[in-house]
């Protein structure tokens, strides 16, 4: 496939992460989907909303749960050129958190800015 054909296929895709990390399979499955999509060099934006931001908390230790944990995987996103990570400010405030509590660098935005980003997308996937 030529470079031009590849260029044509790039889509703007947003993933809206909404679930806490270990209560459901959503965040883990979502992260897998993001990495696969990243391998196809799509224009990816991640938005963390509600309990979704809890998946980014530092100091998660799942060893006593007997599962591997996936929070460190978020640090590898940069390697897939996935660098647009946004966090909803109200969700942070509600949970008494700041961006310093999170394992990756994020931009903290309000819901108006989030809506603007949503409206730029060609597809939105919830996790």
């Amino acid at each position, binding site marked *: 496939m030529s470079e031009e054909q590849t260029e044509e296929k790039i889509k703007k895709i947003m993933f*809206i992460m909404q679930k806490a990390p270990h209560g459901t399979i959503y965040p883990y499955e979502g992260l897998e989907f993001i990495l696969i999509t990243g391998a196809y060099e799509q224009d990816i934006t991640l938005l963390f909303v509600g309990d979704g931001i809890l998946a980014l908390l530092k100091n998660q230790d799942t060893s006593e749960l007997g599962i591997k944990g996936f929070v460190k995987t978020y640090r590898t996103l940069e390697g897939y050129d996935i660098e647009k990570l946004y966090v909803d400010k109200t969700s942070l405030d509600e949970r008494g958190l700041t961006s310093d509590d999170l394992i990756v660098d994020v931009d903290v935005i309000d819901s108006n800015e989030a809506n603007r980003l*949503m*409206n730029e997308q060609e597809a939105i996937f919830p996790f």
Partner: protein
Amino acid sequence: MLHTINKSPFSSSSLDTALRFIKDGESVLLLEDGVYAAMAGTTYEKIILELAEKSSVFAISADVKARGIEKLIPGVEIADYGKFVDLVSANIVNTWL
């Protein structure tokens, strides 16, 4: 943009969260347990009334009937599955979990 909500607002914060991100003029579709938000007389009535003034709010007919909801909040439109398909094909869909 079409925002879909399938959880009861009384057991999940998904509607409350979604409301912060819905811009005037965008569409909202309530389905499955999400239709409880469209039931008249609840603490969500005022919120849904205000939402329906600025946005199009739909509730899936089959889900409303299945739950025995007789009175919907004014402004909420009943949608059948055909309308659901029309909405999904005409909009970017934003699903609130």
